[in-house]
């Protein structure tokens, strides 16, 4: 009797949860889907860190094997230009491409002065946190200079290793909840759940407010929730979608990336280094950024 009661409750709970899980299995489709690589060209050759060459455009021969179940592991290449910004909401000045700012969100946006994009200021006048050497944080790591990304998977967690800055983060998949009284962290706290055999839905909270959502300077508050859908399409292909929810800054959640495609590189592909060292940055500012911004230099 007791067992059947417990089983019944479990069934009811699963039925109640089913619509929620189902709705989260797929990332919400944006109102407008823009070309992934409009306005860009691809060099034909990609070099790895060992100076081995690979074709930039990987041509699939035959039908790829199905995606393995609950397995994102591999070295994933978004190509030379993809992932440079929030592609669903590019910073191009077109009103339809702007996130749904609240008045506070718009006010905060206008306090941020990016060094690129539609609102670009002179390089010496930017207050982009990256210029101070601050980490990108989330979700900007997905939205700016996203390059070859390695994913290493363990039973209890997924490690994501980014090229830019040699940054890594942990996504816990052991069923834990977010900690209480989260101390803000540059990359927040991430937990992931398999919402299908091939899709890991990741939520990130507790991101330090000093980070920007993206290169355009879009703001976020302490209560921002970032959702990422890592969907392995087949053996050789992965897609990443990103949604930002922050009621203080945005009137509704908005999609920043939608099914950004990645190709699987071979296991011996050596990921190149991309580090913005302060000493290099200082030299660049001295000789280029400050002089073109009328700030002396040299």
């Amino acid at each position, binding site marked *: 009797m007791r067992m059947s009661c417990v089983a019944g409750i479990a069934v009811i709970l699963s039925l109640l949860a089913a619509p929620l899980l189902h709705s989260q299995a797929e990332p919400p489709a944006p109102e407008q889907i823009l070309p992934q690589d409009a306005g860009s*060209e691809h060099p034909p050759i990609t070099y790895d860190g060992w100076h081995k060459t690979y074709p930039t455009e990987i041509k699939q021969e035959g039908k790829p094997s199905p995606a393995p179940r609950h397995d994102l592991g591999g070295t994933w290449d978004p190509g030379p230009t993809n992932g440079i910004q929030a592609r669903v909401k590019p910073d191009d000045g077109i009103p339809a491409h702007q996130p749904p700012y609240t008045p506070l969100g718009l006010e905060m946006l206008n306090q941020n002065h990016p060094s*690129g994009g539609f609102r670009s200021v002179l*390089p010496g006048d930017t207050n982009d946190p990256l210029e101070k050497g601050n980490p990108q944080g989330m979700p900007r790591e997905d939205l700016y200079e996203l390059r070859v990304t390695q994913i290493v998977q363990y039973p209890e967690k997924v490690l994501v290793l980014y090229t830019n800055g040699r940054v890594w983060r942990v996504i816990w998949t052991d069923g834990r909840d977010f900690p209480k009284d989260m101390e803000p962290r540059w990359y927040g706290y991430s937990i992931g759940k398999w919402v299908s055999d091939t899709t890991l839905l990741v939520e990130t909270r507790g991101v330090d407010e000093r980070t920007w959502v993206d290169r355009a300077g879009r703001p976020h508050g302490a209560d921002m929730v970032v959702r990422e859908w890592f969907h392995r399409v087949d053996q050789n292909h992965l897609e990443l979608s990103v949604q930002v929810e922050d009621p203080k800054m945005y009137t509704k959640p908005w999609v920043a990336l939608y099914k950004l495609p990645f190709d699987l590189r071979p296991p011996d592909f050596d990921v190149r280094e991309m580090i913005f060292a302060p000493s290099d940055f200082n030299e660049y500012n001295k000789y*280029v950024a400050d002089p073109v911004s009328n700030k002396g230099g040299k």
Partner: protein
Amino acid sequence: MTRKLLAILALGAAVAMVGTPALAHHGQAAYDTSKIVTVKGVVTRWLWSNPHCVLFLDATDENGQVVHWIGEVQNPLSMTNMGWTGDSFKPGDHVTIRLTPAKNGAPIGLIADAIMANGHKLDARNFVRDAVDPDAKPIDGKDASKPDAKTDAKPDEAPKQ
């Protein structure tokens, strides 16, 4: 100094209405993207580092004065895929560069391409753009982002500095 720079721009500039070279890290707000300047000179330094690689070049203007030009391209990771390396330039190399000049008249610009003394050409332009507007058109209607669409300068055709 300003007059010399103006003279260089007047004599040495091959002005062309072109598409906008863009940098992955910084935008091009500081540069006059409607212009291309050709500079022929001698390399003094090649900085192969982030956020952008920087080429230092000494060019002589029509008055015999040496002008220290600086040109930037994208980061090493991106430039490697375009055929550039940390050894692409050495001090003393003679090179002709075409670049988008700074708005404020400083002898600094975004390099579109570089041609070595032996004629070898390194292309730097436009594998990355800031804007993703699919309807964006270059000013003159030509797609200058494509390497074949630009006015290819050869070392012996480059305007004298």
